[in-house]
């Protein structure tokens, strides 16, 4: 079997073989590949793998344009601890706002 030890994503141990399998099962769009394989969803959030993997996907699927689009992502762009997330200050609430909320 080719590509079984050839890693395209280090966070979730995704190999080229896995990518081939996902494509064979019909997951050819970048959004679907992300959800099915977990790529870009590990600690690096795609920082080590995204463009390389998408390029590989595009060559394997054949260039129809769509697969190479980067999937959506949400903040935080870097992993943070829960403590840090809890500490991040929100907007300052003025007295007027509070009255408006009531």
């Amino acid at each position: 079997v080719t590509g079984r030890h050839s890693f395209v994503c280090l966070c979730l141990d995704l190999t080229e073989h896995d990518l081939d399998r996902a494509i064979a099962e019909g997951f050819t769009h970048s959004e679907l590949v992300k959800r099915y394989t977990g790529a870009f969803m590990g600690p690096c959030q795609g920082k080590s793998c995204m463009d390389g993997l998408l390029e590989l996907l595009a060559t394997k699927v054949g260039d129809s344009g769509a697969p190479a689009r980067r999937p959506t992502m949400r903040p935080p762009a870097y992993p943070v601890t829960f403590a840090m997330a809890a500490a991040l200050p929100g907007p300052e609430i003025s007295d007027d706002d509070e009255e408006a909320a009531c």
Partner: protein
Amino acid sequence: MTDRADGIEFRFNGRSVTARPGQSVAAALHANGITALTVSSKYHRPRGIFCAAGRCPNCLLNVDGRPNVRTCTVEAERGMDVRSELGRMHAAGLRGIDLVGPLFPVGFQYRYFKRPEWAYRIWENRLRRTASHTSLPVPATAVPPARRLASELAVVGAGPAGMGAALAAADAGLRVVLVSRSASLGGAAQPLEGDSVLGRAAARLETAESVQILQAATVVAQFGTVLAVDGGREAMRIEVRESILASGAYERLLPFDGNDLPGVMLAGAARRLLAQQGTRPGRRVAIVTDNDSPYHLVAELLAAGIEVPVIVDLRAAAELEQAQATLDAGRPVRVEPAARAIRAGGWQRVRWLRARSATGHALKIECDAIVISGGWQPADELRRAATGYGAIVLESHGAEAIDWQSESAVTSVVLQGAGSVVGARSALEAFYQGQIAGLQAASRQGRDVGPALERARTELRRAVGS
């Protein structure tokens, strides 16, 4: 390379390790021959330093009870207690890809034991336990203090582009917050030479009154004109008028069998280990690349007494002339154009590389490290993850480059791209792009930038050689 006399002793899985002052935990372990730092999430394969820039999953260790610390960015301290997240499995060197792989193909979690539901509950728990790499922090982490900042301009990234932007904007009279992921200025260009354009810029920035430098801090999200910053010991919220994204680029990996073995690392990582950490990536370092960047590293490797047995270049011979011209003719290195890396082998560390030359000839090269480079990916995730700024950000696929001919006009004043995030190829090109971005921001906010903008444009033209 370690000097016992002023060495910093810490513990790794109960064993004593000595670091040099200023060395990161991961680099110290690597220098002490501990190249397998962690095990991978699914197959528990050994993993070692890969990016040396605090973004890949390979050096996440438990430090003094804090789980999943990016140890390549944490300086070693006396008495630190560093542990593998999966202590015992790590010691056993369990490696399940050949056994487990075929049984648990990709996407298996969506298929197996989904019905009946009670079976899934058991299965899910079991999966969690096997896949989880850590335990809750001991002692429980306190919520860090928070701080609110306001500024006219935020510059994300303190590499050449970020330094140029912050300095130029401050010179033009803006109040600037400069956020640097590392503890010192310079980004990928570190260490900076004191008497160079960048070295002088760093020295001026450090004393500039209108520039606030946040060191060892990461912008984790930007919502419109608000930046959320993880400052390590404190959380920060910065409200700005404008921001410049100078976050650089990430080097890409190359796929070949065994490309995850400890000892296989990005060219940038090898350079950072050598130049910033005083740590040799290996004694015999093979190179696999599809671009020029590792060629610039060869002289540094050779100067450090490291052998470079081969450069396996995926590009055709005709494309390599410029790259090969950068090599020192006095110390020839074997270059294999149009070659392919087939497989890297070894157990806890890479021991050999098998490649196929352009003529189909099989090569087996002994080495204890492999430097790889598969090109660059812009570090524009903040831009892609930005929300709350409407369609401009959501529809764009990356950072928007500054229009360096323009006086001030842009479509968006948040996360304007400058430097290698928008394709700058050299440190000076990035620096002057940054200057222009900074001056444009100042000009938009009503400052008189005078002849500075034209000067920066001239320098930029010179830097790109046109």
